[in-house]
């Protein structure tokens, strides 16, 4: 402990239980474990020294950004250390000419756009949690967001990294390479959920601010019509930058909260559409999309008349999870993807799964990507309700995979979907992932027990994560 304290300083080491308590879980709040110690280093060098020391004692390490992850990826492990990047938030370089930025991994997502917007640039991936989540967490989870429909998840934007490996070695891949030299280590690291090493610096591509943006809100009398409109917009080849659906219960939650934006409470669903580009491009795309909405029985379309109105519509969409918190003490945020041609039937299927179990489901999702978020409001103190929530989560994942879908579009696997990995991957697929992980971290002490289901023969050295018998539900 003294050695660690000497590396990170007094402020960088938390060991007493009151100060370490906030680090017991991430957004998957009922998976909890008290870390032995929380380290908050200030630089790549400090991270490297800490990891070298911990490695020499075979102590497991769990990386943590802002702890907004929803799958338990940053849940501590017993006997392990939690290493957070909260004190590494510098913008190192904004290169407007070549459109990239180099930042420390703890930088909050929205602060990157703040740092480059004066140059007419922005950082495109915009998770709804962007006011809190870190770039390092975004990299580890390959996070998405509403505008990733046009711009793609984090992996499309990361062009360099500095990674500290489990043994403390520093892998400097920060140069903004046009193409990787040798194997694409950066591409492979993105989405590895903290199991390959700790990203301390991130180099990202910046996107020019569009000349014009048009925001439309389509109001529908049925969720089916809203879903069908999205499928038709995609099949019709219209270029939207975001296509987001909110259902009636979500609208009610949002309108009853500080995020109220005037979404019509009597609507069964609204579709929030954004198009961007030049003024002409926006106009032509918006007209094409409006015609499709009309064909699908839209009751009314509102156009944001000002930037302020646009911001309000988006604040309501991005604040939806927060607003849902008012309905019940806990929220299970599911994240599955289905083919975009099957939106209507899969939204129905997930709704039926929940209602059949007497659960309250609220839908707010990235419809343009087929990325569903069937969210369940519940109270985890009610053990029977918690059991039904977990069962519904498993069932939704199963039906989506059977329909050609996948387990996660942006939140990752973490602890929450460990068991479900076998629905999607064969033993050989998973074995290969274990092998690749061992190439990065032969000690397997980086974030053990996450993402890859443990098979006794594969991970003899991994310490078990103390998962409460009950399982996986979000908050």
């Amino acid at each position, binding site marked *: 402990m003294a050695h660690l304290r000497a590396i990170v300083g007094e402020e960088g080491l938390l060991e007493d239980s009151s100060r370490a308590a906030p680090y017991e879980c991430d957004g998957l709040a009922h998976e909890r474990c008290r870390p032995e110690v929380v380290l908050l280093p200030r630089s790549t060098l400090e991270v490297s020294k800490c990891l070298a020391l911990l490695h020499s004692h075979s102590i497991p390490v769990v990386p943590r950004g802002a702890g907004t992850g929803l799958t338990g990826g940053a849940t501590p492990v017993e006997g392990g250390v939690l290493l957070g990047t909260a004190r590494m938030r510098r913008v190192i370089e904004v290169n407007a000419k070549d459109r990239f930025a180099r930042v420390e991994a703890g930088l909050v997502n929205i602060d990157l756009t703040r740092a480059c917007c004066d140059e007419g640039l922005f950082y495109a991936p915009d998770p709804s949690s962007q006011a809190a989540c870190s770039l390092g967490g975004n990299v580890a989870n390959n996070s998405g967001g509403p505008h990733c429909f046009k711009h793609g998840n984090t992996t499309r934007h990361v062009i360099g990294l500095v990674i500290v490996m489990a043994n403390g070695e520093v892998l400097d891949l920060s140069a903004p*390479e046009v*193409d990787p030299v040798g194997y694409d280590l950066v591409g492979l690291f993105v989405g590895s959920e903290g199991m390959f090493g700790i990203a301390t610096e991130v180099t990202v591509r910046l996107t020019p601010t569009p000349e014009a943006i048009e925001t439309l809100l389509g109001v529908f009398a049925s969720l089916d019509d809203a879903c069908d409109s999205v499928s038709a917009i995609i099949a019709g080849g219209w270029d939207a930058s975001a296509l987001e659906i909110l259902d009636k219960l979500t609208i009610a939650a949002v309108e009853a909260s500080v995020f109220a934006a005037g979404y019509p409470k009597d609507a069964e669903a609204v579709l929030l559409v954004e198009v961007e580009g030049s003024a002409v491009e926006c106009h032509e795309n918006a007209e094409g999309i409006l015609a499709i909405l009309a064909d699908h029985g839209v009751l009314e379309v509102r156009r944001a008349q000002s930037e302020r109105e646009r911001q309000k519509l988006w604040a309501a969409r991005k604040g939806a999870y927060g607003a849902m918190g008012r309905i019940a003490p806990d929220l299970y945020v599911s994240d599955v993807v289905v083919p975009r041609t099957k939106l209507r039937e899969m939204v129905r299927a997930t709704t039926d799964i929940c209602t059949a179990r007497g659960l309250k489901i609220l839908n707010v999702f990235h419809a343009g990507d087929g990325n569903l978020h069937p969210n369940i409001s519940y109270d985890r103190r009610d053990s029977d309700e918690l059991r039904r929530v977990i069962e519904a989560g498993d069932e939704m994942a199963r039906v989506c995979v059977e329909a050609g879908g996948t387990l996660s579009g*942006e939140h990752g696997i973490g602890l929450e979907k460990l068991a479900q990995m076998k629905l999607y991957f064969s033993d*050989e697929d998973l074995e290969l992932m274990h092998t690749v992980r061992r*190439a990065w971290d032969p000690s397997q002490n980086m974030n053990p027990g996450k*993402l890859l289901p443990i098979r006794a023969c594969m991970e003899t050295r991994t310490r078990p994560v103390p998962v409460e018998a009950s399982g996986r539900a979000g908050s």
Partner: protein
Amino acid sequence: MSLAESLEDIVGREGLEESAHFPGLPVVAPADDESARELFLFAQAESKSLRLFGRGSKLGWSPTPKQIDFALSTHRLQGVIEFEAEDGTLTARAGSTMGSLRDLVAERGLELSPDVPRPHGATLGGVLAAGASGPDRLRHGPGRLHILGTHALLPGGEITKSGGRLVKNVTGYDLHRLYAGSHGSLALVLEASLRLFNAPRERCALRFERECLDEALGLAEKISNMTLAPRTLTLFHSGSESSWSVDVGLAGLGAELERNRCRLAQFARPDERLDGAAALTRSEELRDREPHAGSSAVLHLASLPSRLADACEALLASFEGRALGKITIQPGVALADLALAPNGGTTEDLARRLQAARTALTPLGARLSLRGAPRLAPNAQNDCIGGPALALMKRLKEAYDPTRILASNGPVGAH
């Protein structure tokens, strides 16, 4: 039994071929995944080393390994597995040509990326393994970003999946990103899924002639700063004439296209303008005007847009006096290909100039590699990697291919 006979046993007579790329070596072309698997198992059992390829169009991108017993081509592993036009995705077997896939999706108003040169001679698997891109990179970004998932045959005979067929998916590690650009050194990609894009509704091609490289780069910079979002922007020098052509491909919805064309015409008068089908034909000609044709080797320069002019100057200075062929520059993505004329000098001279060029380019953050080269040491041909990155790459190679049946000589070094 000779090696050729053993291989024939597995793939049948029609699967045993010869190829100008591998003189004197048996070449096998399995017709299905199972025969490919048997070939891998055979190589394991007999300690044979094999080189993977598609149709051979990008074999020169990494130096030929010395130790190969036979080569395996995917060209018979053809066919579309799933084409979901309304979902914007395509899954095909690795030996399908990019041209055939491109023609298929075009019928539904879609396009795939990368739009590689001579697409009917390039396979999906080969393009993926070479990490290739085309002129459409300016619009769509590097080709590796559009691979949604793969099925790959591992050296040990297992067929494994990574990613999937959906446009958004973060389930499991993105192993397919590792295969992109790995030059067949880790696994044989059997099938790959791609994200598709809406094909432009209308097109226009403009050509500007300029006296020298500086003027051509200057015009390109102005165009890049105009927020025209051109689809392609290519500078070309034929090697024989003195002038440079600057080709701009515009695409989009009618009114948008017209507006951009007018904005561009306001400050530079094009020497040639083509619309509609003629513009498409022009873009295909530009794409296929690969500098490799008729040259002994091509220098591939990767830089940053702001440093491209300096990097080009440094490169040309290092090769002054040596006969050069065609030069193609994509300023928007800071890439340049410079062909070396055949019989332009000795191999030693080439190695020396490459070294000098690298010394000048390194401070500019630019990289240089040689494609389709005469036999040079891999380190002379490609940028070196060192330190923990190289060690990690070697561990990854070891993890995939512990018995080293997959021969490769990529930037990671001789395997």
